[in-house]
């Protein structure tokens, strides 16, 4: 299949062909069911980890839709990602309280440390870096989360130490 060739990325761990075959099974299952695009994309993301263009094309061809429409849906919902996700997700709060008390500084510092932009994933796939709107810790701003753990009154100089705990 021509798609398999182009999908192949630099990570060796997973067998691409196997993942693609699994996605094709999902597509086959939903093929003639109207309104199943979001379902299929969900499952494809679970299988593949994210939804790069090549996977979107697979889904588009399978369901007989233009890829522009598939991409429209993928980019509309925040739970879909077109980038590989890291093992851990960092979310810095940029709600009003955090913003005025230095949230932006945390973002800038993290960009430096991780060497990526907001929304991206580090090359070693350890961290995906996002921002959030108010995570309910306004009294102790600035706040951020790594996975489910909330960090309050974060001092930018402590960021390296916090991240160190998550590196394996």
């Amino acid at each position, binding site marked *: 299949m021509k798609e398999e060739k*182009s999908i192949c990325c630099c990570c060796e761990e997973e067998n691409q062909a196997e993942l693609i075959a699994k996605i094709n099974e999902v597509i086959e299952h939903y093929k003639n069911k109207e309104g199943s695009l979001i379902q299929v994309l969900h499952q494809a993301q679970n299988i593949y980890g994210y939804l790069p263009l090549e996977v*979107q094309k697979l889904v588009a*061809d399978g369901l007989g*839709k*233009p*890829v*522009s429409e598939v*991409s429209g849906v993928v*980019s509309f919902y925040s739970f879909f990602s077109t980038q590989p996700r890291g093992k851990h997700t960092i979310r810095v709060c940029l709600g009003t309280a955090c913003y005025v008390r230095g949230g932006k500084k945390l973002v800038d510092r993290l960009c430096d440390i991780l060497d990526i932009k907001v929304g991206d994933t580090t090359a070693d796939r350890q961290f995906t870096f996002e921002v959030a709107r108010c995570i309910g810790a306004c009294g102790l701003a600035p706040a951020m989360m790594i996975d489910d753990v909330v960090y309050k009154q974060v001092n930018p100089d402590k960021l390296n130490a916090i991240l160190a705990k998550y590196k394996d």
Partner: protein
Amino acid sequence: MTKMINLTINGKAVQVLEGTTILEAAKQNNIFIPHLCYLENVHKFGSCRLCVVEVEGSRNLQASCMVPVWEGMKVHTNSGEVRKHRRMLYEMMLSNHPQDCLSCTRNQDCEMQAMGQLLGVTEARFGGDNEKGEVEITPSITRDMAKCILCRRCVTACNQIQGVGAISSQKRGFNTVISPAMELPLGSVDCAYCGQCTAVCPVGALKETDAIDMVWQALEDPNKRVIVQTAPAVRAALGEEFGMEAGHCVTGKMAAALHELGFDDVFDTNFAADLTILEEGTEFLGRVAKALTGGEATLPMITSCSPGWIKYVEHTFPDELDHLSTCKSPHMMLGALIKSFYAKKIGVDPKDIYVVSVMPCTAKKFEVTRPEMMNDGVPNVDAVLTTRELAKMIKQNGIDFVNLEEMNFDNPLGLSTGAADIFGVTGGVMEAALRTVYELVTGRELPFPELHVSPIVGLEQVKEATIKITDTLPEYKFLEGVEVKVAVTSGLKGAKKLVKQIAEGISPYHFIEVMGCPGGCIAGGGQPRMTTDELRQKRMAAIYEEDEGKPLRKSHENPDIQKLYKDFLGEPNGHTSHELLHTHYTERGLYNDRLQEEI
């Protein structure tokens, strides 16, 4: 069962069909409600909300283009509240619209500007951000998404009407942008360049890529012989740009305007349309003869004059390209002849000749850049202007178009028959081909009143006809009793249906005509905006009127074509023809995955 609904609009009692929207109900009763995203019979989405009205009993103002009427409804279209709200919405829209109207190609021809005037908005009160990326310039279409107002008419045109789906709405909220998947450039995806999106865009966000500057430059260059040709459909719509009544061709005035603009020769693409019939008709008879005498031949054969259709099929059905006629489109044929036959005749080096085609089409702008469209290292055609662009040049030059004295096209590439005129409308190429092929094979005129093959006339998406061949001339005995089945479609959605049948091996046809735009070239992506079905009908009538007014109605009767074969080309499908007038196609694939890397 149709039920009538009673309501009042601005106190006036009116009655309309059930299911009618407030906006339509108002229009039917001569009450105008301002609207921007809504496009009659084409697009209804409710995104701009400029069409809001007050409905008694409803707490919020209602978008009249979306809300159907109900019994006893009381609507106010112009209350103080409504006016205030509309202006506010408009001003918000303006706040993230680049305010560079003076340098925008849609200046004076923009629905957004017109709306501002209508609502009496004279200043931009709010400032805003706008980061919608760079302007993309493809050979056919220029995209400037900073100007997009997200009406999504183009999305409807590309997806629902054309069935291509090259563009769609991406992301959400303030970041929403209309683009191909993953915001890839339009030039990198399966866009057909049909331009139907540019024909409905209300603002300067989607438009044809400008060729006017290039053409002025050529006209000013004393070392260039600048030669122009015009497609059949241009004359059926150009007058509309000057406020003339739709439905009549302005052929003579157009020729006069082109002379006045300074073109050295004013030729007619129609001449090459007649030529196409001889080349394509011969090709068709050749394929049928082979098939009926036990040889291998690819049938059905499909017409190839519409470059949007060609790019579409190269992307979507790259395995079916053998079905396409090898004929270049008529204006490419004429360009090739101008730079060979005519260049020799007037003793000018083809490199010093600059050929401009005026076309109802945006895809032709891409077509002329194809490497297949060159002979001896020079492109067959140098620039393509749309009908809209020609109108602009005429205005720029201060020509009083409406009052021009009519003129003729120049010889020897200016004379055409009625068969050439109908190339501009869906069904026309097929009818023109049948007029010639039938007569060639039987020695008799095509047996239809006025020579019109009525089953394939009109705006339906797919049309078909069966022509039974009897009493053939001796050399066509193999066709005796054969029922030739033809199909005609316009718009890429219909084309998809017919090619799908071919791919599945169940196509019952011998010959298929495809035009890329719904209705044919009369409603091409480069024609005056906005093309409604009513306008299509009028332009169609104009084309048939032109055809019926011609002393000659069949391509093979064109004396200048006969002379061209005698003096230069030899035989239809002969060696010189193959060199100059025929081409081949490129397998692209839906994701351009079949394209060979270009070196």
